[in-house]
């Protein structure tokens, strides 16, 4: 099913022409922002120098740090009068990044979201429980307006009060749920405790943090759904910039609204399809806050094969944000890899916490995992064996020795919004 068949399947010369026109417009829009005026002048390029979409490579990059320095409204290209909403990113250090939307931006965003939800088969017959945070976080409102646009019955449940969430699914006959993957696991856990069958539920949409294929299997089995991955970030309006279709093999980006590049994060060199690198996005229709070659920090690749659904080029599922990436004794580790390993081990739960310390100038990574109640024999030696088994499995996947601590089931924190499972206590490196 298509929401906007023409735009969703645009390809070849037609797509390139539209992208070019919109890129030129975006650069012009960006020139209204002092930061970009200076940047473009320094790079010696302007809107008129963009004669083909390949000329994008001459444009300068925008980094997260640049946006932070623009706090609060330094990146707005329109007067505040025309900004009808602001959101902020969850800044972990210092000031957050503020993003603004014109009325047209909100319209564009809702339209992309409507494409996403229609793509996974949702219609005005569906009851949609939106269990993402409402408020400054883009997740809740972003999905909300797209779901309303296609006429779904929207339950704006936000996060928290998990028992009530389960009751609503059952009482309202909810057919589709949207949450972070970690909150999806929490919903499954509580539903099981309550003995709730969740019969009406068919579709689950999960995003805002990376999640593995094992997690997908787990969510699908325990919630009785088909699970879809969603992708986006505040800088691209919010969620919905890319989404899985029913093939569930990569995420379709909306190429009429975003121009994508994959670069080598070290050299900035543009990489070809099939090569993994950092995703760089130039939104093509953003009015209030145009961005040029925004470095997302997300690691993915452009997929080569065409999708049977007929839509445009896909990106591979995101393994992790380069912000999430941990460097432990020189080895790159994504928390999603740890989760993937734990989900393959029936003896332990999928919840975990990671603690990183530096002892005698060496990074030490300790992972706490919950033992599965059924696997407790009562024997210390079995526990010691399990501990070694988990550490061995982690070592095999991560290429890294870790220390594993077994903890009681249900004792690790559960997260409702974005999970925060890594506590890095190493401090600054000098």
């Amino acid at each position, binding site marked *: 099913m298509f929401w906007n068949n023409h735009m969703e399947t645009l390809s070849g010369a037609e797509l390139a022409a539209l992208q070019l026109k919109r890129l030129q417009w975006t650069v012009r829009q960006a020139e209204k922002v002092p930061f970009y005026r200076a940047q473009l002048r320094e790079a010696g390029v302007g809107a008129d120098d963009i004669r083909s979409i390949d000329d994008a490579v001459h444009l300068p990059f925008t980094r997260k740090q640049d946006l932070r320095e623009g706090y609060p409204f330094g990146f707005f290209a329109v007067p505040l009068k025309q900004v009808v909403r602001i959101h902020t990113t969850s800044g972990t250090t210092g000031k957050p990044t503020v993003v603004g939307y014109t009325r047209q931006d909100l319209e564009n965003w809702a339209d992309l979201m409507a494409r996403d939800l229609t793509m996974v088969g949702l219609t005005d017959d569906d009851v949609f429980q939106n269990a993402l945070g409402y408020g400054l976080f883009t997740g809740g409102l972003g999905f909300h307006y797209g779901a309303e646009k296609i006429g779904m019955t929207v339950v704006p449940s936000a996060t928290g009060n998990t028992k009530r969430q389960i009751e609503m699914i059952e009482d309202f006959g909810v057919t589709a749920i949207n949450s972070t993957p970690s909150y999806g696991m929490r919903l499954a856990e509580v539903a099981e405790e309550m003995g709730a069958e969740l019969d009406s539920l068919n579709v689950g949409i999960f995003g805002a943090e990376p999640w593995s294929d094992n997690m997908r299997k787990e969510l699908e089995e325990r919630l009785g759904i088909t699970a879809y991955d969603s992708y986006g970030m505040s800088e691209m309006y919010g969620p919905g910039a890319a989404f899985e279709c029913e093939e569930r093999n990569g995420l379709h980006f909306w190429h009429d609204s975003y121009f994508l590049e994959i670069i080598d994060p070290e050299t900035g060199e543009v990489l070809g399809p099939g090569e993994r690198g950092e995703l760089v996005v130039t939104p093509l229709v953003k009015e209030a806050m145009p961005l040029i070659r925004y470095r997302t920090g997300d690691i993915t690749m452009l997929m080569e094969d065409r999708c049977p659904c007929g839509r445009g080029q896909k990106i591979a599922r995101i393994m992790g944000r380069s912000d999430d990436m941990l460097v432990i004794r020189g080895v790159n580790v994504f928390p999603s890899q740890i989760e993937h390993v734990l989900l393959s081990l029936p003896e332990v739960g999928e919840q975990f916490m990671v603690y990183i310390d530096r002892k005698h100038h060496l990074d030490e990574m300790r992972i706490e995992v919950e033992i599965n*109640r059924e696997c407790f024999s*009562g024997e*210390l030696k079995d526990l010691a064996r399990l501990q070694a088994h988990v550490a061995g499995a982690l070592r095999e996947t991560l290429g890294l020795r870790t220390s594993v*601590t*077994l903890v009681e089931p249900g004792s690790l924190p559960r997260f409702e919004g974005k999970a925060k499972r890594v506590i890095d206590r190493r401090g600054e490196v000098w």
Partner: protein
Amino acid sequence: MEKKSEYVIKQISVFSENRPGRLAAIAEALRKEKINIFAFSIAEANGFGVVRALVDNPERAHETLTDMGFMVSFTDVIAVKMRDEPGGLYETARILGDAGVNIEYSYAYSGKDAAVLVLRVDQAEEAIERIIEHGGELLSRSLFT
């Protein structure tokens, strides 16, 4: 001769993280349920431990602790009465050693009429048979129900 299974006793084994207050939580739960602890020990390894206990009502202890969220399981052990005087432990240990029975772990308590050695062994039936053969005395499981 009585059935050997008569002497196989259910020990409760409770998983516990190695941090302050865990034993108190376990002990408090048993106190509330008026469950008496005959003997217990804590085995520790690498950040966690197993609390092992012989109680007068293992089924109820299991249920209570499980409801509280603890991980609990039953482990078969035997309890041998020892003379509470020099050489008491030696007698029992020698019988098992001679019989080729391996002791995985053990703990003891001093009861009203005798000292008791609680043993987790690799061959419980063999152990019971040899101890009885040598005139030793084992506690019956009926004491722990």
